[in-house]
């Protein structure tokens, strides 16, 4: 029989509200008495207590420690704390209102800031090709792209000029 069966409501009888004292059973049960507690158990428990509490590290005692206060003392301390906080807050507010605005003298200091001047110089470099030809005459006129003979009139007189030594330079 397990616990659930043992204690299920439908199996439980409904005894009277008062538990009737069974004197006969009580006397019989009194025949069995437990042994006395040995002093070694007392000693072991006290030793364990000392190890547990007295040799606990200070930081742990600080973290887990607690203090007890009686209710009136705790209430008085709480009231005192509240009053002090209120007064401190009030003083701070009034002081901040009373203090005039004092403008501190402003000292202007000129700090030279180095400016980098960048100068952009553009240079055109021409490559001179056929310099001699350029000296001899004007730049050749580029031929018209289109030849129109509509207004062509043949000249009436042609004058020929022969320039000698045209090929002396060669």
């Amino acid at each position, binding site marked *: 029989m397990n616990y659930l069966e043992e204690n299920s409501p439908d199996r439980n009888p409904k005894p009277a509200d008062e538990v009737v004292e069974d004197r006969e059973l009580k006397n*019989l049960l009194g025949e069995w008495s437990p042994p006395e507690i040995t002093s070694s*158990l007392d000693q072991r428990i006290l030793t364990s*207590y000392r190890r547990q509490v007295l040799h606990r590290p200070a930081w742990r005692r600080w973290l887990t420690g607690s203090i007890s206060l009686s209710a009136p003392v705790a209430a008085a301390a709480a009231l005192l704390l509240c009053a002090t906080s209120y007064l401190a807050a009030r003083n701070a507010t009034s002081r901040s209102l009373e203090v005039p605005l004092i403008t501190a003298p402003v000292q202007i200091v000129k700090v030279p800031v180095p400016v980098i001047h960048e100068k952009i110089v553009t240079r055109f470099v021409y490559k001179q090709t056929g310099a001699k030809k350029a000296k001899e005459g004007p730049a050749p006129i580029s031929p018209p792209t289109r030849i129109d003979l509509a207004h062509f009139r043949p000249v009436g007189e042609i004058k020929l000029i022969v320039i000698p030594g045209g090929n002396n330079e060669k």
Partner: protein
Amino acid sequence: MTDERLLEQAASGDETAFAVIYERHRGLVFRFAYRLSQSREMAEEITHDCFLSLIKEPQRFKTQEQRASLRTYLCAAARNLAFKRLRRAGAETAIDDFSEQLAAAEAQEPLRLLLDAEVSEAVRKAIGELPPLQREALILFEYEELSLAEIAEVAGADVGTVKSRLHRARQRLRILLAPYFKEGVDLNVERCRL
């Protein structure tokens, strides 16, 4: 000084306060643990662990302070430790497998029982054969004289359940110890005859 105050002092390192608490309650815890486990070694271990856990985590008692006294708190702690150990030892199973037929057969041989052991041994054995929850209720009510409400606190059950367990424990003990319930038989006289 109240238990609660003493516990606070003991937890903060007052050895004298701890000694007072221990002196006040050690008998109850040890007797209860011994009767529940029926082993001296186990009872000592339970008593030791019970008081040490109280000092180690006093806040666990403080959280229940409104509804429980230190006495019932310690009983509940001892009960849990005892059941845990009994479960580990497999004792509960053995007790659950209790056979009423066997008990009845033993009850028919009072002379052999009386010859084999003292009456106290018979009582011890009979109590040991009760299911743990019934045993717990019986021990706390009959031996430690806790009220039904206090036992309900210890066991974490309602008063009706506790009453029911007690009733059934008594019934079973009446069967187990039937030879000793002869009307008009004085146990001391009977023992003298033996």
